[in-house]
């Protein structure tokens, strides 16, 4: 779309009656600022739709004329979506600057060669001539009072470690600062948020829990709804129906945050380390866009990146740890077992002897186990070999159409050993299992992935022990760091009296 530029305002070309000079929004150096006209009677539906958002024209079911009226009266703004400084292009919706994500096309909307962003294409294409539209008028009222009310309906109790972290979260929320909650796998990190969320709601702000994975949004939504029964919760993921809800509490995939702009007073990012948040700077950008300036930021993770760990040690990052599981038993420490060139063996349809021995022992004891392999291809070679020892062995990977069924069968103990790629490294818990990695030296097994994998064992209070073994063909730094991290968490747990002797 093109705009004519008046000294005071932009006018979209479809609304022009004469034919003045027009430009695309990215060609306009400084966009005019229009002061709010308090006497204008604005559309409340549009207000609810657009507050805290950055949307495309085609995402707004309102006539262009009405949108323009709100713009002219200072209730909404048109922003550039894509800018170019010399050869450097930047998408202002997703923050991408990497040239490989940009392309051009002869655009029928502006009649020029338009640059567009391929990185965030699935959220609707933004190009040089696309205006991003945001609300800048008064914010909508949300029904129901939250001040001075008990909002949290939860009768559970926190472990000493959880309580400590919960207090820190409440404190950070009061001070509107940043905090990292570093909680070991199985610490019970969700409960740690409850008081902080209530505090944030009492302060009258909007709260967002963002996580990279849709699974987590789906799992978290009913839990949060159950403990905050009087608060409307919007649950956002690709294809969700809550897309236009303006609510106090939002649970969203980090991807969905691309549609938000300066919306939240508190943002909680769960599993900061999980793919794709840690690898995808886009989603980190989205989190920054979605929060208001001066908002509270809580990060939750079991496995912070090495940079973050260093920042914690150097006192550059506020953090709190929960070094122990709620059942007060130490984390299983992974054992390293050298297994030779397993890849070569596999090519000859054989498995390393010590690995086979490990498997046979689980079969004898009838103990369930998870075995991680670096690639789908190697997993497919291992499976038939293992089945020689026991029929109830299955394999599952990310694109497996029967993924859910297989995980369920494992839960119901219909499968003895489940072979998997890294997809089961987080989230999924089975009560009483041993864990092995074959080929732990593979680069796919990062420090964080290995800590998560080890964290699958010993999860339940009934069976707090589980063996974790990394079969490898050459120890890696990631393996050593993962083991070190687990050992040091246990040490801290003992020191703080969070673990039973």
């Amino acid at each position, binding site marked *: 779309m093109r705009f004519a530029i008046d000294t005071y305002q932009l006018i979209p070309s479809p609304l022009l009656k004469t034919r003045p000079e027009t430009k695309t929004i990215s060609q306009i150096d400084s966009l005019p600022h229009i002061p709010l006209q308090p006497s204008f009677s604005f559309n409340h539906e549009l207000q609810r739709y657009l507050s805290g958002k950055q949307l495309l024209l085609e995402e707004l079911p309102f006539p262009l004329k009405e949108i323009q009226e709100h713009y002219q009266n200072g209730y909404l703004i048109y922003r550039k979506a894509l800018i170019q400084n010399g050869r450097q292009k930047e998408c202002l919706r997703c923050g991408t600057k990497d040239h490989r994500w940009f392309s*051009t*096309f002869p655009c*029928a909307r502006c009649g020029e060669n338009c640059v567009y962003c391929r990185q965030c294409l699935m959220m609707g294409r933004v190009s040089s001539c696309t205006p991003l539209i945001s609300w800048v008028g008064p914010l909508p009222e949300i029904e129901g009072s939250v001040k001075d009310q008990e909002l949290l309906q939860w009768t559970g109790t926190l472990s000493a470690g959880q309580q400590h972290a919960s207090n820190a979260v409440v404190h950070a929320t009061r001070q509107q600062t940043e905090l990292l909650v570093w909680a070991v796998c199985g610490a019970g990190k969700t409960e740690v948020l409850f008081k902080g969320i209530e505090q944030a709601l009492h302060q009258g702000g909007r709260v967002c829990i963002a996580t990279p994975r849709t699974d987590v949004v789906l799992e978290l939504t009913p839990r949060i709804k159950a403990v905050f029964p009087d608060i409307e919760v919007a649950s956002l993921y690709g294809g969700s129906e809550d897309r236009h809800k303006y609510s106090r509490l939002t649970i969203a995939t980090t991807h969905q945050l691309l549609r938000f702009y300066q919306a939240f007073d508190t943002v909680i990012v769960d599993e900061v380390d999980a793919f794709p948040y840690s690898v995808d700077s886009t989603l980190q950008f989205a989190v920054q866009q979605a929060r208001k300036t001066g908002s509270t930021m809580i990060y939750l993770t079991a496995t912070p990146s090495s940079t973050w760990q260093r920042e914690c040690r150097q006192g550059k990052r506020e953090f709190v740890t929960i070094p122990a599981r709620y059942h007060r038993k130490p984390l299983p420490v992974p054992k390293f077992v050298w297994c030779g060139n397993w890849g070569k063996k596999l090519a000859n349809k054989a498995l390393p002897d010590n690995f086979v021995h490990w498997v046979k022992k689980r079969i004898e004891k009838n103990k369930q186990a998870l075995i991680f392999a670096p690639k789908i291809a190697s997993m497919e070679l291992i499976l038939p070999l293992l089945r020689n020892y026991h029929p109830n062995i299955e394999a599952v990977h990310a694109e497996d159409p029967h993924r859910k069924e297989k995980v369920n069968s494992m839960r119901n103990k219909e499968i003895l050993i489940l072979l998997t790629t890294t997809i089961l490294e987080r989230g999924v818990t089975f009560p009483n299992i041993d864990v092995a990695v074959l080929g732990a030296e593979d680069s796919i097994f990062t420090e964080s992935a290995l800590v998560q994998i080890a964290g699958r064992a010993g999860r339940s209070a009934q069976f707090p022990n589980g063996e974790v073994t990394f079969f490898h063909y050459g120890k890696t730094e990631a393996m050593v760091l993962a083991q070190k991290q687990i050992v040091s968490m246990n040490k801290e747990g003992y020191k703080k009296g969070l673990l039973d002797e």
Partner: protein
Amino acid sequence: MKLFSDEYCLICHGIRTPVISWTSLLLGTEEQLVCEECQNKFKSLSGERCGICSRVLEVDYRKEELCYDCIRWGQDSTWSGTLTQNKSLYEYNDFLKEVIAKYKYRGDYTLVRAFTSRIKEELTSLSFDALTPIPLSQERLYERGFNQAEALITEAGFRPTHLLTRIHTEKQSKKSRSDRIHLPQVFQVDGESAFSLEEKTILLVDDIYTTGSTLRHAAKVLLEHGAKSVSSFTLAR
């Protein structure tokens, strides 16, 4: 030499393992944009095919060298002979369906480059006086930002001749086959076009040949305005 300049696959964004084809070795100009894995998911149409529409012929869905669909079109006096022949590059399998959807509905224009060298090859081997893309309505063109059929022509280095405009804007896909066949005219010859159709061979271009009704509607109008013959070329069949 622009061999392997991009590190990433145009389609899956994965790191590419360069495929060294004979053409790239011999000519040294073939730019590889798509990784081997993605490239292998495109299935060229092969085997015995319908003499008119290029459909791969199945035993129980043919009569001599034609498929039943084309026989049915041929039996209808309104449509008989409208489309001389259709050529298509690839089987419209799930993968291509996904790629085309991303290309035209999500508007990922640059995906067209995955096909341009094959299109160029194919168009060079065909003879025509004009390459005419199936047009979009004004609203749809604005909505998508580009005409996906036209881009197949221009990106392969050819010049499109716009001969048609759309009369009907309703979604075709929601209608049954018989509705589509008996629909009043969908296209009209563009009054502003300076091109004389008299005695001309026209090659229509579209992204997909589904039932062939869109292309036959377009062909019919062109024939009525004097074209000698009308054939078509599509990416998928």
